[in-house]
């Protein structure tokens, strides 16, 4: 439980928050009340809620990395991914449900970036929950207008002759960036390639690690 690790860092390198030990907020009070009412009315169960959280915790950017590395090594899979990314990710066990997923291929002339200007739509089936900055006004407002400036804040300084395309997600349609395979990885196994695929490279605010 988080409150057992007050001064430690979590596996993802973030500080734990003392969520259990702070005074109850109004919204936490509401969450407990709504959850208990739904359980009492047999609309859901505590087990179902916990299973939903477990599924959430199991969806991490390593899902996306599996898809990307497969696309790098299997040309027919790459074609399927670019044709219908919902089906292609489902094929590897990462179901996006009824949502439409579109894979955007980075090339020598085009770099793709994804955003949700209206809220926080994100390819959760491949990347898990969105990072805090993805939901911030600063990213959502500026990435569509001054993408190169914003990307520089991420440490990504793209050459002028590389076109930057920003794709705005919707509630029903999500994007994933297919980054370029790093140079010098011709002999890499699919597993070794997966380790080079970062979350940020699949959002388009970063590049894969180099070989």
């Amino acid at each position: 439980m988080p409150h057992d690790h007050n001064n430690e860092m979590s596996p993802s390198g973030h500080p734990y928050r003392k969520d259990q030990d702070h005074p109850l907020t109004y919204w936490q009070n509401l969450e407990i009340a709504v959850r208990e009412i739904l359980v009492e009315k047999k609309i859901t169960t505590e087990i179902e809620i916990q299973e939903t959280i477990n599924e959430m915790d199991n969806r991490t950017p390593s899902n996306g990395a599996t898809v990307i590395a497969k696309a790098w090594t299997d040309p027919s899979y790459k074609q399927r991914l670019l044709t219908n990314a919902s089906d292609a990710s489902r094929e590897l066990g990462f179901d996006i449900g009824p949502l439409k997923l579109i894979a955007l291929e980075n090339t020598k002339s085009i770099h793709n970036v994804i955003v949700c200007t209206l809220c926080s739509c994100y390819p959760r089936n491949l990347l898990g929950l969105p990072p805090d900055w993805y939901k911030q006004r600063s990213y959502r407002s500026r990435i569509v207008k001054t993408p190169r400036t914003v990307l520089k804040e991420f440490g990504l300084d793209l050459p002028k002759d590389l076109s930057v395309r920003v794709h705005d997600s919707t509630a029903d349609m999500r994007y994933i960036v297919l980054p370029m395979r790093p140079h010098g990885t011709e002999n890499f196994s699919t597993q070794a390639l997966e380790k080079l695929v970062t979350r940020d490279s699949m959002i388009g605010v970063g590049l894969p690690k180099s070989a």
Partner: protein
Amino acid sequence: MKNNNTEDMHSRWHDMGGKPAGKLEFSEHDFELWEKRVDALMVLASSKGYFTVDGLRRVLEDMGEKAFSEMTYYERWMASINQNLVEAGAYTLQELGEKMAEVANRGLTYGECNAQEIEENMNES
């Protein structure tokens, strides 16, 4: 309201693409248990047909810009989920009010007020 920017006259506050904003804040946090539970409630309520992601967003967007700066992401979600569930007839405001009072009376912290954990702790000891 006087507004010379025609673009702004047609877009609501949440439609923020292209609007001026400050630099990025890169701090990230691990989601708290209560936040994950809010997310799970949304997943379950929508998969069971009580409301859709459009219903979630309608309430979020109607909250206005002040809520965006004063409430956290999952606080806004919780408010919206609750409103949608009441509208869908899952429970009444009276039932909610009584349950919230009961929960608040259990203790001072989130952990203390969580009946499920109280039960688990009793089973362990």
